[in-house]
């Protein structure tokens, strides 16, 4: 296996990076209180990510086509709270990893490698396809695990709980099919 194929868990455990999941849940819950009050917004990712996709599409499809699109007209790319939150989330992952000394380039995760082999190309192609499907679904559902699952869930929104009730079993079925027979 290449150096980029490994399980992050042993190094993380050795460095003492892992907080108990319950503490993380409390942290995300309390962060939700703070953002609801301070910036009057729930936690969420894909609304802003869709704005970014408009910015990326602009040089390819043409700025006029993007401006004329009915979705991007409502959600134009701008440097706003939501798009900077995306940058912040990446910075948070970077800081946590670097400060714990566990930052490391990973191309193929170990569970994937055991089932599908160490090929980086294969993993990248499927990560791309999976990302595209997940994003399309998140926009159709009007939110992802953050916006629908956590923020919708904690507000007891019907949409959020419907999302969770469909996403989890479909995800489990997908995983069971993908990893059938795998140890």
């Amino acid at each position: 296996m290449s150096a980029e194929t490994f399980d992050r868990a042993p190094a993380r455990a050795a460095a003492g990076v892992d907080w108990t999941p319950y503490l993380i849940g409390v942290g995300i819950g309390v962060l939700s209180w703070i953002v609801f009050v301070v910036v009057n917004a729930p936690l969420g990712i894909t609304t802003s990510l869709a704005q970014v996709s408009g910015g990326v599409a602009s040089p390819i499809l043409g700025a006029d086509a993007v401006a004329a699109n009915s979705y991007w007209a409502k959600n134009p790319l701008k440097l706003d709270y939501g798009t900077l939150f995306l940058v912040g989330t990446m910075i948070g992952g970077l800081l946590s990893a670097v400060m714990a000394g566990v930052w490391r380039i990973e191309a193929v995760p170990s569970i994937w490698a055991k089932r599908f082999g160490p090929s980086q190309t294969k993993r990248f192609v499927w990560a791309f396809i999976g990302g595209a499907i997940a994003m399309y679904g998140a926009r159709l559902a009007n939110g992802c695990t953050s916006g629908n699952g956590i923020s919708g869930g904690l507000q007891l929104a019907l949409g959020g709980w419907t999302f969770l009730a469909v996403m989890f079993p479909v995800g489990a079925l997908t995983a069971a099919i993908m990893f059938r027979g795998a140890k």
Partner: protein
Amino acid sequence: MFPVTGTASLALALVFGAMFGWLLHRGRVSDYNTIVGQFLFRDFTVIKIMLTAIVVGGVGVFALVQMGYAQFHIKPADMLAVGLGAALFGVGMVIYGYCPGTALAAIGGGSLHALVGAVGMLVGGVAYALSFDWVSKAIIPVGQMGKVQLPQLLGVGAPVIFVALGVVALVVFALIERARA
């Protein structure tokens, strides 16, 4: 004083985003193995984090709204769109191995395939925008229930629902921890 708007809110976006990304990374959900492990029922980190965040976050947010310090931000329950979207999301998330938020934290932590998948997410966003006219005619109008919350729908107070959710969470956690021991 609140809500903070304008330039100050942009600085706060980076701070709150970084707190979120930090928590996701410390919680191990920025790892492909953790996400896929949950859907294979080998690792229960995701469910522990989400249930705890929903109950703790919800109790606080409902109290803050009650006291007039916060407002709800409910998305409309367009049932066909949410159902189809959630199903696609479940498939995509397991193939990708990340959800959008954990993917960003994973990119920060050095996961190259998370970065490649994020490009895929941008393409998925483009596909959605290009199909939006059709989606908004054919799918979104089917089964629209409005910006509904479970207390209104069920005719039960939010405190009752949170107590029930809390009990369910504790039972689930106890079963998980016992099975692991």
